[in-house]
């Protein structure tokens, strides 16, 4: 059987997710035994428009990006969104409640029309997406596990429960109990509560879990001392696009 051809594409983002792939090092060389990478601009010069699986990093932020995305969808059998910017709009969505025209004019004056931009959105707001690798950044392990599932023709196993489940298993002291504020109760698990394990809080980078109880989470944030505005802001950090859709 011919090896599936794989291509990487990036839109508005920091390229940190492709870096996680480049950081696979020896495992990357193993993976290369199973697939043929035909386009990965961050690390190679060669490029081909003939591919089976497209990995897309970054958000769609311009009308001109939509055409490129549709072309990718037409070519690829499978489209995989990697990283928060691509899966949920990510940090980029923070700008969506600002007046973008004002920003552009302040920045570029007369030349503002040269630099078009609209509300940042995840890839599935523009084209259908077959699989997701969540996180900011993605983890190497989850990337490999999703790729393996896809190569075996299986649906990747993505948790449908919140980060709190993993955090409890890891026996962390709850952020609320130590005077901090956390969105772990409504954030999709799969990261093994990595930020809390490192001594901080869950920021929400994997997006809202299926059927989150957002109102209850906001009430908890306020009960523990956040103002209403701060509680809303907590949600905007990563959930901006998802909340707008709901």
């Amino acid at each position: 059987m011919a090896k599936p051809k794989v291509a990487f594409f990036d839109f508005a983002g920091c390229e940190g997710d492709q870096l996680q792939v480049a950081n696979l090092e020896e495992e990357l060389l193993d993976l290369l035994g199973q697939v043929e990478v035909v386009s990965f601009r961050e690390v190679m010069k060669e490029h081909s428009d003939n591919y089976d699986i497209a990995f897309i990093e970054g958000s769609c932020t311009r009308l001109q990006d939509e055409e490129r995305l549709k072309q990718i969808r037409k070519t690829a059998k499978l489209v995989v969104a990697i990283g928060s910017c691509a899966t949920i709009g990510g940090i980029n969505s923070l700008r969506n409640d600002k007046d973008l025209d004002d920003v552009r004019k302040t920045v570029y004056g007369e030349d503002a029309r040269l630099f078009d931009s609209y509300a940042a959105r995840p890839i599935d707001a523009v084209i259908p997406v077959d699989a997701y690798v969540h996180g900011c950044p993605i983890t190497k392990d989850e990337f490999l596990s999703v790729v393996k599932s896809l190569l075996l023709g299986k649906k990747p196993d993505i948790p449908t429960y919140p980060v709190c489940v993993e955090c409890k298993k890891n026996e962390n002291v709850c952020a609320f109990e130590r005077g901090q504020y956390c969105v772990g109760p409504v954030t999709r698990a799969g990261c093994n509560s990595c930020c809390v394990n490192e001594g901080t809080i869950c920021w929400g980078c994997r997006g809202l879990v299926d059927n989150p109880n957002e109102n209850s989470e906001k009430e908890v944030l306020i009960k523990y001392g956040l103002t209403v505005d701060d509680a809303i802001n907590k949600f905007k950090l990563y959930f901006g696009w998802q909340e707008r859709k709901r």
Partner: protein
Amino acid sequence: MKERNLDINVHHVTRVEGHGNIYVNVRKGTIEKCEWNISEAPRFFEAMVVGRNWRELHHITSRICGICSIGHTLASLRATEAAMGITISEQDLKLRKLALHAENMQSHVLHLGFLVLPDLLGVGSVIPVASSNPEEVKTVLRVHRLANEMSNLLCGRTTHPQRLIPGGFSKIPSMKELAELRERLQASVPDLLKVAELFKSLASKLPDFTRETEFIGLTKPDEYAFYDGNLGSTDTGTAPVTEYLSFTNEYIVPWSTAKRAKHTRDSYMVGALARLNLNYDKLSPLAKKTAELFGLKPVCHNPFMNNIAQLVEVVHNVEDSIRLIDELEATGLQQQPDYNNPPIKVKAGRGIGAVEVPRGILFHDYTYNEKGICTKANCVIPTNQNHGNIELDMKALVPKILDKKEKEIELSLEMLVRAYDPCISCSTHYVKVNFV
């Protein structure tokens, strides 16, 4: 050459981080157009942080760049800490310096091994190099992995650090872990010397091209500055960091979504070569020897030597990290509480953080109100400071190589761009926020 016509149009230069294009048109031997153009989608970070809480700024601005996220986090923390008068302990200072060394090593080794080496060996990516030079690639991978594991140990992970927080660290490594790291750093020295020999054997492939320019970076009287220091210029000497705006003078060109900068000349250069030109005397002993191996001395005006300056810096990063761990061991590591969250008195003010990151000097400048909400932000990114210099280098280089085949000219221009190790995601963060 008088009759030479040439149209070079490299759309999305490869093996760099982000989207940049090269356009060169030559008609009858005269250069009509020579442009370095950034087409990356703009990202509005300085607008996005306005209205956000001081506790989140480093988390948000880390996302400007996946490759230098430790540097962005530290510049951000230093700006917030300067604005609120927060000081950190001597121990945390050393640990932060180690984190910067780790990122610099990781980024430089990735650039040299994966992005530059294929050019020097005449291939399109590191994949064929893995077959033609397996030992060398394995050596590069080993050093790269060590740098990544060092970032993990100091920051929690390699990209978008978790442990770096206002006032210090949420969690620190144990002395045992640091001692193990020290051993591995020591053991990597022969690996690095092998990599240096490999580059030495290929150094003749780096074009011998010189164009005089200004170099800007942090300087300190007693150390090769990465984490802090004064602003230094090879043209005008030193100045306090608070005067950075009079150095960077950012401006816009309509053909590019990234801003540019100039100081005393039409452009200046930042990055490893600038740091080396400004701080050569403070290099660690083995790093200085590595520089001597390539005849690299200040002030070097060949931008292609930025690759070699990166190699020299990696050696310095390793040696200086060993020194820092030895100092920590000598004083003993002070323990801190789990989930450390240093108490901070929020106050209004403006703070500037300047940090040397792999591609050069980075500035974050925030203003907070009395509630600790950010009201204004400005970030000046190394690659933006280099764009103008890249284009002027291209304009000086093209006439010198006009007799070569089109493919060779194209490759030389791509190599020039890659020598700067541009980070284009970073540089399209867009500009300041003067809106309501």
